[in-house]
């Protein structure tokens, strides 16, 4: 998927192996020292089958998924996630995303409308400065995360490529 973007565009999936290293590194990088994120014995004592990924790591991975796709000059505006099935070691998190909304400068600055989801008109995409992406992350036991990300699109892509 390259610019111009359209509502309904699917992002290529990103598969992330859920290793112990990732769970522990993510927990510590987010300064989250809850034992259930690094100590398997303690996690089991609390009824969990193993350590599991903390919410901040999931949040970071969702953010990375979006900026990996739209490029380093895209800027995250909002990341809202809801957790589902836990990420245990040995699983694979598979992130998928779909553009559900494209906002123009007018809309973003408080204007009335964003791109109509039924419209395929490229002009919407060309003028879009912000995209809303629905993100879903499944793992081997269910849906780990669902979320919505608003991202400001890189200017050159939105303005030039479609024109």
């Amino acid at each position, binding site marked *: 998927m390259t610019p111009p973007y359209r509502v309904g565009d699917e992002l290529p999936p990103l598969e992330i192996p859920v290793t112990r290293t990732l769970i522990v590194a*993510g927990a510590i990088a987010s300064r989250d020292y809850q034992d259930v994120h690094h100590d398997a014995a303690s996690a089991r004592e*609390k009824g969990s089958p193993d350590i599991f990924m903390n919410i*901040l790591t999931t949040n970071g991975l969702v953010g990375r998924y979006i900026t990996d796709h739209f490029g380093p000059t895209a800027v995250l505006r*909002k990341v*809202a996630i809801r957790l589902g099935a836990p990420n245990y070691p040995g699983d694979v998190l598979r992130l998928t995303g779909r553009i559900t909304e494209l906002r123009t400068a007018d809309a973003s600055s408080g204007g009335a409308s964003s791109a109509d989801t039924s419209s395929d008109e490229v002009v919407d995409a060309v003028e879009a400065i912000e995209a809303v992406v629905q993100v879903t992350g499944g793992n081997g*036991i*269910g849906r780990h995360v669902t979320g919505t990300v608003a991202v400001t699109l890189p200017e050159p892509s939105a303005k030039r490529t479609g024109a």
Partner: protein
Amino acid sequence: MSAPEPARREPRRAESRPDPDRLSPAAPEAARPAPSVSGAARPASPAPEPVRSAPPAPEAATESAREPATEPPTEPAPAPPTEPAPEADRLHALLRAYEGRAAATGGSGRDPVNLPMIRHWCEAMGDTSPAYRGPAATAPPTMLQAWTMGGLSGHPAGTGRSAAYDEMFALLDGAGCTSVVATDCEQEYLRPLRPGDRITFDTVIESVSPRKTTALGTGYFVTTRTDVHAEGELAGTHRFRILKYRPARRNEDAERKAPARPRPVVNRDNAGFWAGVAEHRLLIQRCTDCASLRFPWLPGCNTCGGAEWDTVEASGEGTVFSHVVMHHPPFPAFAPDGDGGPYAVALVELAEGVRIVSNVIGVPYDRVRVGMPVHLEFLVADPELELPVFRASESG
């Protein structure tokens, strides 16, 4: 040494042949679909085990990222309760009094925004974006909350969470809602964070839901909002929702605490035997045609094929004809100490000449010997189950 071959039709076969269901490892919690509470169009989520933890600091709530197995309200103001509970929601009325009150005021980040923490984050996330490197680096926006975390040492005394927040959590703990699960994290980023930015934050208790029953247990969704400032300027907001709940008790938990022996299968061919046990009589079948004794109970005579029978009460004296020691799998219901074994299973030859599979008690499992004299006792295995067992005689 012969195996206890009559076990197939022996009434107490369960003692020597544990119920396969009970030997299967418990299905992982995560593999058990949990019903969706709200019925919203969302696939049923696996239910995790509850994490019991101390009341978290505002930021610590994020740290118990557990599967909610429920449908927490989408809006900050929660939907009506899933169950009408007028009397229980007197607690809700108390909890609501905390809405709008500060959970943390004037907290400050332990460190200014800095490149090493940014690099560690990017390494962990596998994020290679050049935006987070070099002289013009910004912090990944999703790090927002990391800058507010107390870490291992926590925030200095007097900062961080408020008395109101502690009070509210004490109310919930007092109601048995001692477990925490993070359900939602919503962040908005208003300005990039750059190395050197000093972080301060304020957290407000935004809402407390009515009591909700979820697959994890019954409790209350608590939503907080943290405003994160960099150099005094609002840089982002972080809305966070946890479920503070009383964990639902699971049946297998109860079973683990009080393991019960499998129930005998009582049918028309062996009902007389169990009726005898109920009267503390060990009854042996006797063929009325050829007078052969038989055990375990069968519909017909092994010797002559005769269908008619009566019973003889065993004297209760016997000897160990053969025995095995069960080491694995552990089966707490069968071991005297409840630890799952090892325990001895014996084929006891009764004085009348028939043999019965049972346990030998009164002697350690490794002291059971072939030829050991034993005598009948009735063991109250649990309030609903009595079983004939054999106690080793003193000389044994």
